[in-house]
């Protein structure tokens, strides 16, 4: 649910970025949102670790506080301007093709989000590739990782920063609901299918692509909301895998006895 929290917590960042840059250009808005998104994840983690607060409580305290700060900032300094999370949060995937990147010379280079999100994809993929071993160990057994001298706090913050980067940059083009659907749905489905972290990552990515295509064509066919259809396909995919596994288990259990404990 960190994604949900970030979507609200980015508001003060947007306002501050607006106050500093004086414009509603996307780039400063994104930078502001990204910075507060990371601040939010750091605060959540800090409260969770240092104050022994439960994660949901830490999330609740942090994102309501940051959201409220954003509201106050708008009221005090930017009351006349139409400024809210719409500027970065509630993107609509159908508009991506018309959000073009046009150079100063008038050259059209294609949809702008494609470039931004490709860069983010590259950064996140590289981060996972380089830190795979450390990320795996610090998530699985933090005490052992610390005993080896690997800083669990550092790696957790880096991971959270990557989550924040990926979510904030996606919010702008596809909207908050779809980001959360894609953040949770594909890995949850993959977890049902495999218990190997590498396969899980691969299946998650493949499922994400599959859902994007089928969701899009369902929307085209039904003439419905693209984001809505993608989220629905995500849910159906999870339910289908879950149901198939339950069926297989009840069928297969007499042939394959449960393993002896020993």
């Amino acid at each position: 649910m960190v994604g949900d929290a970030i979507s609200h917590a980015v508001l003060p960042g947007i306002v501050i970025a607006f106050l500093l840059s004086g414009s509603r250009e996307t780039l400063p808005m994104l930078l502001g949102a990204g910075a507060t998104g990371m601040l939010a994840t750091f605060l959540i983690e800090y409260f969770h670790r240092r104050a022994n607060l439960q994660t949901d409580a830490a999330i609740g305290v942090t994102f309501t506080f940051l959201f409220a700060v954003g509201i106050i900032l708008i009221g005090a300094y930017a009351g006349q301007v139409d400024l809210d999370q719409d500027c970065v949060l509630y993107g609509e995937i159908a508009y991506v093709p018309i959000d073009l990147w046009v150079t100063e010379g008038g050259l059209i280079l294609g949809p702008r989000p494609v470039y931004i999100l490709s860069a983010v994809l590259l950064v996140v993929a590289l981060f996972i590739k380089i830190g795979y071993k450390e990320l795996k160990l610090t998530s699985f057994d933090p005490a052992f990782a610390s005993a080896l001298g690997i800083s669990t706090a550092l790696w957790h913050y880096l991971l959270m920063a990557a989550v924040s980067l990926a979510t904030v940059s996606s919010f702008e083009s596809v909207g908050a609901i779809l980001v959360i659907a894609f953040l949770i749905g594909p890995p949850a489905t993959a977890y049902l299918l495999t218990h190997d972290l590498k396969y899980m990552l691969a299946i998650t990515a493949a499922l994400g692509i599959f859902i994007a295509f089928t969701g899009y064509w369902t929307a085209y066919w039904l003439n419905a909301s693209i984001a809505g259809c993608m989220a629905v396909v995500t849910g159906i995919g999870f339910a289908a895998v879950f149901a198939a596994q339950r069926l297989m288990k009840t069928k297969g259990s007499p042939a394959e006895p449960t393993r002896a404990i020993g």
Partner: protein
Amino acid sequence: MIIHAQTPVLEVHDLTVTYARKPVLWGVDFTLPAGCIAGIVGPNGAGKSTLLKSIMGLIPVSSGYVRLFDHPLDEVRHRVSYVPQRESVDWDFPVSVLDVVLMGRYGKVGLFRNTGARDRAIAQDCLDKVGMAAFAKRQISQLSGGQQQRVFLARALAQEADLYLMDEPFAGVDAATEQAIIKLLREMAAAKKTIVVVHHDLQSVRAYFDWLVLLNMHLVAAGPTEQVFTEEMMQQAYGGRLSLLSQVSDVMEKRAFPSRED
């Protein structure tokens, strides 16, 4: 009563640890010789796990210091292995048995580098030593409690350390596994490795350990088992707990008869 070792492998000096201003360990002071199997014994809440964690630098100490091989921990981290309590990790995490054992090699491999074929061979060999070679590809969620403990032990072996700190390795383990583990620990001790074990079962103290640290927030006694494991000392450590005292005197009675393990 403290009996110090001549050339200590582990030296804990006047260690005080507090949680939220309440002392958990108070002026603990002892030394351990090389090549011994040492038991840390004491009632619940005596600070046994806390002692291991503070030796590994996992929790801050209020005063005192710990020296390993006559060095501070950071200089000799690669020579020390820590086995956390089995419950401290999420056994539904998507990794295989071999993956977990390979984590023992992470400290040797270093940051950002991957484990190689040699590490795999060592990990496989360590699994073999704990009788889990056939389970290498198995997902850890499919293991029984005793098997999980043996996987943790294999991971510790893969570290090729000289000092092993184990937090309740016999908890939730059946008698056969316990015997297999203690046999392995004896072989390690014979190879001049030092093993420190947090232990609960007073019945097996004399059979398993050649050095004993009796703890009840402060140090009650430390030294060779035959000198420390006396009724007087045990009453000091467990003082006032009647059911335990009867258990203790039960054990003491057994001393009069030659034990089969000896």
